[in-house]
């Protein structure tokens, strides 16, 4: 799932990824290559199953993955 500016950069709400991406870090790297506009963002976090995940977190099929650009709530 993509939110905020990431939705605009990827021009999509959700992505289906064919590549094999074993960890959050690998996913981030893949996204940066696919969407160079992402490199200009202040920081991008990844949430796995509704919780922030570190780069070494393993990804499994069926995980709910959200790309979290800089927050601006409140």
């Amino acid at each position, binding site marked *: 799932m993509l939110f905020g500016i990431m939705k605009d950069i990827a021009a999509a709400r959700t992505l289906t990824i064919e590549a094999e991406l074993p960890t959050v870090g690998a996913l981030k790297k893949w996204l940066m290559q696919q969407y160079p506009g992402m490199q200009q963002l202040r920081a991008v976090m990844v949430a796995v199953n509704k919780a922030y995940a570190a780069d070494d977190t393993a990804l499994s099929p069926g995980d709910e993955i959200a790309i979290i650009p800089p927050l601006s*709530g*409140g």
Partner: protein
Amino acid sequence: MEQLIRIGPTVTAQEAIDFVQSPESGGIVTFIGAVRNQTQQKKVLKLFFECYEPMALLELEKIAQTVRERWHVQRIAMLHVTGEKLPGETVVVIAVAAPHRAAAFEACQYAIDTLKEAVPIWKQEFFEDGAVWVAAHP
């Protein structure tokens, strides 16, 4: 500690105050954030709030849990809007009731600071000449 956590199209300060007020509480501290009519001298027409709601609710729940652990607080209410908002409209309300006011001030400030840092909500500002996602770029 009792808590009210809600994300919805409209929120009011009164709703949060009514929830936290009780005959046992000594003091209530609230923070109310509203849409400003300008940002860096540019007129704001409207805002749009996008929210990853299931995760946002979990993050708000974590804030309530930390408040419960750190301060002697009787009740907390945390309300946030989603969707379109016009200048002057309320965006966020945090209300905290505690027996001692210092705890209420600290817990309320912690809650709004952490909400802004950790709760997955994004704000898009609409100007006469376009729109930007707030804080996205350095």
